């Protein structure tokens, strides 16, 4: 592989990491609160609002049913509004975030459902406010599950970010398609795939280690 090819690969790797990191952060920042809301408004939960819960659930499901490649194209006006452009790495962050927020929300909801209702009851018996129950009991106890879910999300984002490449998003996926598929350069395509495998492995093992650190079982 030429020096040019190496630097291209490195640049694309940085682009991928940038897309995954920013959309990962955005999806956690918005998806986890949404997951909390989905959880606490369930029937028999601390802030039960069955109607709101059902409405939120429907919206989340709808967002999750749109195939990513269609979502990307469909929200181009929104992407332009937020990122100022619809092409490039930064622009790709908008659909990536939007697709992963409902995903994270469902994962967070699942992790919170695993927290024993006895703990919530104990906190209530101590005079905890609903906010305290969420921040001091539910989220800390669900932390290993949340870390697990975020690991899953980041891995999914790596592969989605490759799809973003298809509409000019940059990153490793873009590189692989342009050189491997369009220019018949198998070396670069294989190199891209190897780098992707390494990235996913690193995310997975970092996630597992972090999860083990907070899991006192």
């Amino acid at each position, binding site marked *: 592989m030429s020096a040019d090819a190496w630097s291209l690969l490195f640049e694309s790797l940085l682009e991928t990491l940038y897309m995954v990191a920013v959309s990962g952060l955005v999806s956690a920042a918005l998806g986890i609160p949404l997951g909390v809301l989905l959880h606490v408004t369930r029937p028999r939960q601390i802030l039960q609002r069955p109607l709101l819960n059902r409405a939120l659930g429907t919206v989340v499901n709808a967002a999750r049913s749109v195939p990513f490649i269609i979502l990307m194209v469909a929200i181009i006006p929104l992407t332009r509004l937020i990122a100022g452009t619809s092409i490039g790495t930064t622009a790709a962050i908008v659909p990536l975030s939007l697709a992963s927020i409902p995903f994270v929300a469902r994962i967070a909801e699942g992790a919170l459902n695993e927290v*024993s209702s006895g703990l919530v009851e104990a906190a209530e018996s101590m005079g905890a406010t609903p906010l305290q129950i969420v921040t001091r009991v539910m989220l800390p106890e669900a932390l290993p599950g949340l870390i697990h879910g975020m690991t899953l999300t980041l891995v999914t984002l790596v592969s989605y970010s490759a799809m973003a490449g298809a509409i000019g998003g940059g990153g490793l996926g873009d590189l692989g398609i342009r050189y491997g598929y369009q220019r018949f350069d198998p070396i670069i395509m294989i190199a891209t795939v190897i780098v992707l495998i390494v990235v996913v492995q690193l995310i997975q093992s970092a996630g597992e280690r972090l999860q083990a650190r907070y899991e006192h079982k």
Partner: protein
Amino acid sequence: MIQFKSISKTFQGGSGPVHALDNISLHVPEGCIYGVIGSSGAGKSTLIRCANLLESPTSGEVLVAGQNLIELSPAELRSARREIGMIFQHFNLLSGRTVFQNIALPLELAGKSSSDIENAIAPLLELVGLVDKRDSYPAQLSGGQKQRVAIARALASQPKVLLCDEATSALDPQTTVSILNLLKDINKKLGLTILLITHEMDVVKSICDRVAILSQGRVIEENDVESFFVAPQTELAREFVRAAIHEKPASDISHQFRQGYVEGSRPVLRITFVGQNVVQPLITQAARLCQVDFNILQADIETVHSKTMGFLMVDVVGEEQGVQDAQAFLQKHDLQVEVVGYVS
């Protein structure tokens, strides 16, 4: 200290409304260890959850330390709950927090400073005997140790009342004894009022001052523990007492046993007495005076509410008149005598 005033609780079940609690009135005096016993499904859990409104009764009033919890605003209820500690069958400790951090939780929730928390927790760790487990996580503790942490946590906010929801039901018998001793100790040292629910008569026997039996959402019997053991009024109470003193059914002891009287059969008496060395002279006196013999089928000494109680099962052999006299003699001397059946 805790007063339930005709509380009822109705759940909407799949097949119509379920009356979990049916017009219950109970009074738990200050400093008392009060036990509520009942089979599963009797409404015990619902009842104890009404004492801090984890469960709101459908009707009735709940007074704790003179305050009617039903009338309080959510914020007032939260501050009232800080005065009511609670421990649970499955401990409900936070797995991600150390022993120290678990005990600190109620103080953190109340907004106490970290130095205040530090000062408050040291004596609590000492009280429950877990000084060396301070930085362990719950997963590293035994069941008994977990319950000790839960007790320390419940005491952290210096409550006036402690609610124990089947606190020893998940523990082995030995650990149960040590936890009960700890509760008794706390009750004495801190003057804490304890309301506990249990299905284990042994718990009532060893630490309670008063007891109520719950059956199908109703209190069917309520008494001080001593009288309860000596003279249970209802069939369910008698069953609980028999289980607690490990009494074998009379039919197991004698194969000639029958429920009803037939010509020539002899009564089997169940004699209950409190205090030591009371019964033996009375039995021999009865034998001498009434010219009967006592055939001892089963005898047991138990400690109930830190008093010694004896339970005797005898069949009385003699002339019919003598047997009746003997029975009357024992009753006259304040022994609890009950005919449980006959042998021939």
